[in-house]
């Protein structure tokens, strides 16, 4: 047996699994997105029509799709930086040598990640409640009139962002914590001897030290946040006025509420193309920064 064939044999199990559980579904979804597969086609395949790119064209002409896309981008632009800042901030706090009960705080900050979304939603619906909510109570103490967080289209997405950041920051915190601990102490010591201030230490020692991990974390967070679904699903059902309708929620409704599976597949591919493009852009930007 030739060496190269032996290599193929070794990777064959992985390739077969990938082909069956990734390539095949993706290809059939792509094929489905070119048809008008729906409830009627599910009952009788004679009702299936090949529509070419009409699903894609229809989506790009659908104001609701653009609204969902706009909402998702708004969520990502607001949520990802906020999430990373909070994660990094808490990671530095629990990494600080001055902090006490570090193990306890690590657990507390990580707890939201492992709690169930539905249970969390019940609590947060009360926190956001206009009349009895804890958040409005707190704001009332400093003289801010009650905000209808989930009922007003202007505040519903910020409310979802607050919830998502709270729910997810602990995960990135753990990754960033590991990165922070890998920055050698002697670098800090040398910088301090050179007279660097706290901010300069952060800017010129900490940030370059964790830069690769920060890139990874921001890409993972962005990819995750583009797939916003559970938060609006349990909190607002996409409302009010579709202000919290995300692309994935739109896809879910098309596919599993109305059974327009052809259109839903087209949504999935459009979202994939978008996420792929943004990730490439992000990688290119960070690479250029590393070179300069």
């Amino acid at each position, binding site marked *: 047996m030739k060496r190269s064939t032996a290599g193929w044999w070794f990777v064959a199990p992985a390739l077969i699994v990938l082909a069956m559980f990734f390539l095949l579904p993706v290809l059939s979804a792509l094929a489905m997105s070119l048809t008008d597969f729906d409830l009627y086609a599910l009952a009788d395949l004679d009702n299936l029509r090949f529509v070419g790119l009409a699903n894609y064209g229809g989506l790009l002409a659908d104001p609701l799709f653009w609204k969902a896309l706009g909402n998702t981008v708004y969520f990502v632009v607001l949520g990802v930086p906020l999430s990373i800042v909070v994660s990094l901030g808490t990671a530095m706090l629990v990494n600080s040598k001055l902090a006490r009960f570090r193990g306890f705080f690590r657990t507390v900050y990580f707890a939201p990640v492992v709690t169930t979304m539905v249970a969390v939603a019940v609590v947060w619906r009360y926190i956001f409640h206009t009349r009895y909510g804890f958040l409005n109570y707190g704001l009332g103490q400093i003289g801010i009139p009650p905000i209808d967080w989930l009922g007003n289209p202007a505040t519903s997405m910020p409310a979802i962002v607050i919830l998502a950041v709270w729910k997810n920051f602990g995960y990135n915190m753990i990754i960033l914590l590991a990165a922070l601990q890998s920055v050698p102490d002697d670098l800090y010591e040398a910088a301090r001897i050179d007279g660097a201030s706290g901010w300069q230490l952060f800017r010129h020692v900490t940030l370059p030290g964790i830069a690769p991990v920060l890139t990874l974390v921001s890409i993972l967070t962005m990819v995750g946040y583009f797939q916003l679904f559970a938060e609006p699903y349990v909190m607002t059902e996409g409302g*009010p006025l579709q202000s919290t309708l995300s692309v994935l929620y739109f896809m879910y409704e098309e596919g599993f509420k109305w059974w327009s599976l052809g259109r839903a597949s087209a949504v999935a591919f459009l979202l994939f193309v978008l996420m792929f493009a943004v990730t490439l852009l992000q990688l290119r930007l960070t690479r250029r920064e590393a070179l300069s």
Partner: protein
Amino acid sequence: MSNTQLSNVWDEFGNGLFSFYASGPWNIAEFKKRLPERLKDAWMTAPMPGPEGPGLSSAGGASLVIFRSSQRKEEAWQLFEYLSRPEVQAKLYELTGNMPPRRASWQTPELAQSPYARAYRVQVERVRAAPKVPEWERIATELRITQERLVQGLIDVDEAAAELDRKADAILEKRRWMLDRAGQS
């Protein structure tokens, strides 16, 4: 008043946060049970309003259906006949609070004497069944979305009607194509 502003419709109704609530007969028992004692006689049911006097309502709940391809049409029909008997419908009302659709079933004392049931008896005369197409649920959702935009003042009534017409037409496109094809063959 949207559902995000209410924590619990029965309590908030008792608190006087809103003055009317469009719901079905299944809620009568809940209102009886959950409203505070002092408000026991302070509420009543009423038929739906309309532009000229009493309005229409959609027949809620479910419909009885026999599939064309069913193997047991006779038996299914017998079940329908059984379920339509006044005494069976009265029993169902007793058990579930769901009101009977047949006029004859309303003669039972529980229904004839309940003041809260009267509005529903009046309304039963003016119900319309939902259109029997699978797309209806989606059209009803579009109706709700358009209504929401109308209430928020984003569109006026004429625009809302035109938008809804266009959406419903697009939703029914596939069905039209299927009916055309069935007509040709």
